[in-house]
């Protein structure tokens, strides 16, 4: 069957990994926030900020890695805002998150338009190019699948390792997991719940911003309004699917990327008979189904969505 051929082609997997890369950043970011007990619905807006700031920095003359840094810092800034609203102030995480999305998106758009009032075709930057590593790129199958990617994809994979290492092997990770489960346990051990949570949200948001930056600095080389196109929300679903574990988060993002890549190819094949929207729905519907399947087994960070106040009854 030709569908099997699709699945067996290296290019298909290259596409899956490419589509998954921004999601890997995003889902890791959301995971870090949620492990610390805070839902970050600001993700969609933080993606926009990352995409805009990273691109803008490079366009203004910063190097590519400089752009990455700026994007991460901008993400962390909005993370800080979300952190202040939800942690010491204890405001509803849903509303603050949606507010951050509105704020981050509109600030980015406004800034872009104010800086570039007269563009009719968006300016381009010199984006990350696929890495061409001598021997590895020539390996059969693996070569084209993995080594058609840019350094940002490898950065994403490195982040998966880093996040799992930090979460499971370091005192900091221990504290983050604890604060997402029972903040009073952390406070009773003399650690600051506020600092841990805000720090985690900032780090997580920086990761999310990298997901956005990937879109303008690696997947493409210009910034467009609306180009995030719901990718952030997908990450929110993927974290639950991943049961809040970095390894599964990677798996989830890759699966989603594979579905999406497959969907595009399927639409190319049989698009004449089935409305295009049906294909576009598939990844969302599969996410919901996957969620239902893992729902019973997943154990939530118990303090997720719960604000913590010292000495509150």
């Amino acid at each position, binding site marked *: 069957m030709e569908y099997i051929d699709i699945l067996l082609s290296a290019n298909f997997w290259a596409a899956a990994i490419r589509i998954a890369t921004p999601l890997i950043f995003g889902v890791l970011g959301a995971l870090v926030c949620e492990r610390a007990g805070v*839902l970050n*619905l600001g993700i969609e807006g933080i993606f926009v900020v990352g995409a805009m700031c990273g691109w803008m920095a490079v366009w203004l003359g910063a190097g590519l890695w400089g752009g990455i840094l700026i994007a991460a810092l901008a993400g962390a800034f909005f993370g800080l*805002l979300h952190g202040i*609203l939800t942690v*010491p*102030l204890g*405001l*509803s995480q*849903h*509303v*603050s998150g*949606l*507010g951050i*999305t*509105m*704020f981050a*998106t*509109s*600030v980015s*758009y*406004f800034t872009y*338009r*104010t800086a570039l*009032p007269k563009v009719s075709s968006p300016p381009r930057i010199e984006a990350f190019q696929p890495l061409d590593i001598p021997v590895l790129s020539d390996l059969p199958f693996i070569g084209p699948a993995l080594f058609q990617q840019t350094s940002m994809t490898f950065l994403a994979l490195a982040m998966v390792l880093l996040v799992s290492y930090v979460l499971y092997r370091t005192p900091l990770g221990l504290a983050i997991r604890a604060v997402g489960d029972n903040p009073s346990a952390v406070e009773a051990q003399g650690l600051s719940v506020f600092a841990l949570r805000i720090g985690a949200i900032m780090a997580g948001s920086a990761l999310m911003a990298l997901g956005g930056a990937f879109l303008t600095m690696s997947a493409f080389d210009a910034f467009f309004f609306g180009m995030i196109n*719901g990718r952030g*929300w*997908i990450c*929110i*679903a993927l974290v*639950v699917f991943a049961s809040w574990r970095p390894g599964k988060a990677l798996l989830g993002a890759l699966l989603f990327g594979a579905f999406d890549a497959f969907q595009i190819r399927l639409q190319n094949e049989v698009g004449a008979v089935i*409305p295009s*929207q*049906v294909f*576009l*729905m598939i990844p*969302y*519907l599969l*996410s*919901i189904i996957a*969620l*239902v399947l893992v*729902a*019973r087994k997943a154990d939530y960070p118990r303090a997720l969505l719960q604000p913590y*106040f010292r000495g*509150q009854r």
Partner: protein
Amino acid sequence: MIRFEPRSNVSSLFAFALPIIAGITALVLAAIPIAAAGGEVFAAYGHIFKGAFGSKFALSELLARATPLIFTGLAVSVAFRAKLWNIGAEGQLYVGALAAVAIGSGAISAPSYIMIPLIILAGMIAGGTLMLVPTLLKTKLGADEVVTTLLLNFVVLLFVQMMLEGPMKDPMGMGWPQSEPMTSAATLPKMFARMRIHWGLVIALVSALIIYIMMKRSVWGFEIRATGENVSAAKHAGIPVTSTFIKVGLISGALAGLAGVSEVAGLKGYLTADISPGFGYTGVVVAMLAGLSPVGVVVAAVFIAAVFVGADSMSRAMGVSSYIADLVVAMSLICVLVSSLFVCFKIRFVRPKKTPLVAKGEA
């Protein structure tokens, strides 16, 4: 060091004045982007005010924009009361609109006193049914409804596009993906000539009143609150928790569906896939600004609509990028959020004391 201490009693004047102070703060902060874009700040304020309240037309625009926000705000507030995190009002709005159009664009012909209740009912059923899915997934299978409602928004939007490009496409629409227009019998009348404000607003206000009574004075409201605040105690006390969730899901979805009905039957006249600029998501914001109170929802919806309409109009008058409108709304939201803190907490600045060295355990 800053400390937050819970406030035990809040003077009502204080609670009343704060949102106003927050609104003013937001406007002051809005000066930054306005100035950055080269606009004249004081003139801008005048334009914002004029754009929102300056004329009968502006006022009507403001209320027309507030109408769907009242519905979605109510939808969210009912659901959140039961801690059913419905982020899917956007999708429910669209299916509500789709249902209204399916019935009201010529499939049935009847006088308006039949058609209007019919499309309202259809929209409510459609929205409620859609919300039933995540509710059941939550209660029966334990799937997180934040995620399912969020994802269903995308599915619904694609479904609406599919319908508008397929079976529900207007044959007279020159190929545009839009539905046939609502028949005049199925149109909510305008309240004033040459103004867009329509009877959807009245339905919204009546809904707010009904929800207010339901939450405050009815057994259902009591059970919804109890379930939301402590499911296991509610279950223990014999409150039918699952059916309460289902009830809440249905009511919430139905209200969001009404937003869709009101937009197609009152404002737009037919359905396109971009009928809502995120009313469902803004509904979450409205509901929370209102502290989940149905009456508050009306106030918050009008506030958000006023800021948007005013700032949008200002952007044109000043020649500033029109993205400023969303920016000012977002800034107002964040200011109001922060101010809510002052209602709940006293803020004390504590000078960190010089601490003497303290030795670890004795030898």
